[in-house]
């Protein structure tokens, strides 16, 4: 086809007189101070509105707990005792006095490393398997019933099998994380890929995108909201499983710390560890959720 292309002339578009540009800037400078302070104030108010209510709730809960456990003969220590006996654990997460006498921050990091391995593998395998199931009716028919049964097996039930297979506690713990967190990732990815609009598939067909390009350019971004929902559920389950797995496999992680503290009757230490686990789990959840928002930019929520 012969193309007689008409180039549009874009020259001279930016040749506005400089004075016209300079004038509004001067005006802006004068009027900009107030909005900044106003913005800061409203930002501070927003923060206040978000931070104060949870703080009040925590204070009330601590107070009730203190009142309930204060009497002599109470089976659990009150907050004041926890503070007195486990102060070093609360204030210094990263002390290191030798092999088993280390701060909870270190222990959490060890557990997180295991989660990172197990969850990372689960994310990769889960998205790929989910894509397969979402794309192919035969893969769906063959694999879905198996997955539906396997996903109901509790994490700890996998542990003995894993120990038998790997003959080592570290890969076993990672396997438990993997097998616990993979199911929601697979299922959500498959749903996301089934929901890719036919229009996008038509575009891909007209452009003759190959399988890899289709996966990377169309499938992943289009299914991103679903995939990240799966990842978010998955990371939550992974964090649940690691603590239980470490209780049984030992080592340095936060789960083993709790078991160890129980065996030496250091109840305040357990309570502090629980707080650590809760906060880390919360942060993980928010992290994946934020990543999801970032990845799904521009995709309509469907």
């Amino acid at each position, binding site marked *: 086809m012969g193309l*007689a292309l008409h180039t549009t002339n874009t020259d001279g578009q930016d040749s506005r007189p400089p004075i016209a540009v300079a004038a509004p800037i001067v005006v802006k400078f004068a009027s900009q101070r107030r909005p900044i302070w106003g913005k800061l104030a409203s930002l501070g108010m927003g923060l206040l509105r978000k931070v104060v209510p949870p703080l009040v709730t925590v204070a009330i809960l601590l107070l009730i707990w203190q009142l309930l456990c204060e009497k002599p003969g109470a089976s659990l220590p009150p907050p004041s005792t926890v503070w007195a006996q486990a102060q070093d654990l609360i204030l210094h997460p990263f002390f290191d006095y030798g092999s088993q006498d280390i701060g909870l921050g270190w222990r959490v990091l060890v557990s997180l490393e295991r989660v990172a391995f197990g969850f990372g593998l689960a994310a990769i395998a889960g998205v790929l398997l989910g894509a397969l199931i979402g794309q192919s009716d035969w893969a769906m028919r063959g694999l879905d019933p198996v997955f539906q049964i396997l996903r109901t097996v509790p994490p700890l039930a996998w542990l003995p099998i894993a120990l038998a297979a790997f003959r080592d506690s570290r890969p076993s713990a990672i396997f438990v994380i993997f097998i616990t967190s993979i199911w929601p990732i697979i299922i959500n990815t498959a749903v996301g890929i089934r929901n890719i609009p036919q229009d996008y598939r038509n575009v891909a*067909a*007209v452009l003759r995108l190959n399988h890899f390009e289709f996966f990377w350019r169309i499938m992943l971004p289009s299914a991103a909201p679903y995939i990240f929902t799966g990842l978010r559920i998955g990371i939550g389950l992974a964090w649940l499983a690691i603590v239980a797995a470490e209780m049984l496999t030992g080592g340095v992680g936060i789960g083993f710390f709790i078991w160890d503290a129980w065996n030496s009757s250091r109840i305040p230490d357990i309570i502090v560890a629980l707080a650590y686990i809760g906060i880390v789990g919360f942060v993980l959840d928010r992290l994946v959720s934020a990543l999801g928002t970032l990845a799904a930019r521009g995709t309509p929520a469907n």
Partner: protein
Amino acid sequence: MASLKRNFLKIDHVDKVFSQRGTASEVLKDINLTVDEGEFVAIIGHSGCGKSTLLNLVAGLTKVSSGVILLEDQEVNTPGPDRAVVFQNHSLLPWLTVFDNVNLAVDKVFGKTKSKKERRDWTLHNLDLVQMGHAKDKRPSEISGGMKQRVGIARALAMQPKVLLLDEPFGALDALTRAHLQDSLMQIHVNLGNTVIMITHDVDEAVLLSDRIVMMTNGPSAHIGDVLDIALPRPRKRLELASHPAYLAAREAVLKFLYERNRFVEAA
């Protein structure tokens, strides 16, 4: 422009049967149509008559049940960028910017023949062609329906297709925006000389834009009822045509076909 090929696209005795759970329904029956290079053909008919199916057959998105479609004597049976489609609902990828949406197509089609800079320039050139260069960094959700359709046209044009297939491209737009886009499309067609097949249910649009109007009978087993040549000189001006006798005659002929000879039964 070099001599234009006759019978550039040939639709030869094409039937389309959809079978679903044992029951077969014949949508298109014995469709015969040839389109010359550089020709603008509009296909008009009531909704449900299978005109979109016909376009999908030419695009290769659906396979013919019997018969054959030839483009430059090559059989068409898979989709490809030589038959770029502008879809009714724009079908831009919402996670890509306007530029990236067009550039995705350009990279795919010209990845081996043009340098990165050339491809970039080609994308920008096509966006300028539809007056969308200014919005290249916006996402589809940030621009209006008419603008999205312009980008969809730019994406299709950028593939340098042998045939440009338009599936009711302006159906979802308001009348004023539609008129703007029709003018733009006419301008582009005059400049580039594309071969265009356009599905529409708008009589004025068909008469204004096309060289020939293909009128489809109602389904099932829809076929081509009549073909009308529009001998109006180009470039065409909307306002001047409004009272042009040939324009009015063509308009009347299409309306008569649609509302006398092939009344839409379900709409009664």
